């Protein structure tokens, strides 16, 4: 069985193998990932407060589908396939807007923000046309941590188990993510990175810290223990709070103090960094005074858009407190990581990477990600022969 092979280290070796290079370059693998992972699981797509008032909408691509996300008047945030039910034209043809209704520009089929077909030329003489049946096709929406989460699956996986459960189990009972009050934080900075690398390279990079001492000088200065190569994420999905250095005052680019700590964090969380991956496309990083959330949007087998938000207490943003040093630290980490991923991507199609690469012991937990990936695709994935 292919998945078992992934488990087994070469006898007498410290190294586990990775999938082979074509797992990161083959468009048909990417298509299967779109279908089996991104179009079935829960995707964190945007901040709730980016749709502030009724009628505001944005379009977003999930897997191979374009989705309209809109704030309705009375039913909160809803989302639909951006496909007119009449002849299929894109209903919304720019990235965002604010309208009283959603109207297709082709034949003027017009939909309420709640999705029902409300008007169309000659519709009054077609009384048999059901306004709900011919409404925009809805997708499943949840809101959590101040974000809009969407699943395109007809029968989506349990949000409680696959998202809440994953986050809460990993943060543990004591170091609960609830302490950070993420849903009440405000976005102080958001940066979008257009990364020319496969999304799995970005996840693998985020899961390990074997690279930290080499490419993240500022981060390793703030968290000296990262020089041991062990990341916040460990085997069996455990999360280790990584301690700040003794002379470090805050999670900033120069170790200077940040802003005041989030009010409800536990004593054990007050000088630590935690990081988790919420598969398939979210990273959550917490430090005492802010939270950093990454959302990934795979575009192709060799391109991924990553949006990174820095979240602070509302008064920090409203009073214009200094956050530049805090933002700069992880912005540099992002640039350093994504550059490494971009320098890795071209090698994935090299003959020299035919049989894949290796995971050292401090990276062995990435195997759990590879097993999960292979299982989601139903096996039959490229691994070393």
């Amino acid at each position, binding site marked *: 069985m292919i998945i078992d092979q992934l488990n087994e280290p070469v006898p007498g070796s410290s190294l586990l193998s990775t999938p082979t290079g074509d797992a990161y370059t083959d468009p048909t693998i990417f298509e299967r990932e779109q279908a089996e992972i991104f179009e079935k699981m829960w995707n964190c797509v945007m901040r709730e407060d980016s749709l502030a008032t009724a009628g505001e909408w944005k379009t977003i691509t999930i897997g191979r589908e374009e989705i309209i996300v809109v704030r309705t008047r009375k039913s909160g945030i809803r989302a639909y396939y951006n496909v007119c039910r009449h002849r299929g034209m894109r209903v919304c043809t720019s990235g965002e807007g604010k309208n009283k*209704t959603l109207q297709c520009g082709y034949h003027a089929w017009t939909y309420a923000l709640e999705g029902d077909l*409300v*008007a169309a030329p000659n519709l009054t003489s077609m009384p048999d046309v059901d306004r709900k049946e011919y409404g925009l096709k809805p997708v499943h929406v949840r809101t959590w941590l101040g974000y809009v989460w969407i699943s395109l699956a007809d029968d989506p996986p349990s949000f409680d188990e696959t998202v809440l459960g994953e986050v809460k189990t990993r943060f543990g009972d004591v170091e609960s993510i609830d302490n950070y009050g993420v849903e009440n934080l405000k976005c102080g900075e958001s940066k979008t990175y257009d990364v020319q690398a496969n999304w799995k390279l970005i996840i693998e990079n985020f899961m390990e810290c074997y690279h930290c001492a080499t490419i993240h000088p500022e981060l390793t200065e703030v968290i000296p223990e990262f020089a041991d190569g062990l990341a916040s994420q460990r085997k069996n999905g455990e999360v280790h709070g990584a301690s700040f250095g003794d002379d470090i005052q805050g999670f900033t680019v120069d170790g200077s103090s940040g802003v005041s700590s989030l009010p409800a964090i536990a004593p054990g969380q007050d000088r630590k960094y935690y990081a988790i991956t919420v598969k398939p496309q979210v990273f959550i990083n917490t430090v005492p005074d802010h939270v950093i959330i990454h959302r990934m949007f795979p575009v192709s087998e060799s391109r991924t858009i990553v949006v990174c938000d820095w979240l602070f207490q509302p008064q920090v943003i409203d009073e214009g407190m200094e956050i530049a040093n805090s933002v700069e630290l992880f912005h540099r980490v992002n640039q350093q990581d994504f550059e490494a991923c971009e320098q890795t991507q071209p090698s994935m199609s090299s003959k020299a990477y035919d049989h894949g690469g290796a995971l050292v012991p401090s990276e062995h937990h990435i195997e759990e990600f590879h097993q999960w990936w292979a299982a989601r695709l139903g096996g039959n994935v490229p691994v070393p022969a």
Partner: protein
Amino acid sequence: MRIDSVNPPIAVFLTDEGDVHAIDDTCTHQDASLAAGWVEDCRVECPLHESTFSLLTGEVDQPPAKRGVRVHEVELEGDDVLVELSDKAPQLPPGVTL
């Protein structure tokens, strides 16, 4: 709301200010129900192409509609809305006949 027991159908509106108005329901540009439109400042915007009609006079503000709609007289009797239909000729869009 659209009342189609009369021909041509009429639209009866209750505005945010609490007033009741009745006009012809069909936009004069293309067959669309004004009852599905957006009411603001005593005007209704056609749901299809954004011409707006006054609920007081029936006049239209901007193309593509060029002709106004008829306004019908409204009386309130307790909870009942009584409408006296206009005796003017309706302005119907192409393809819509009585």
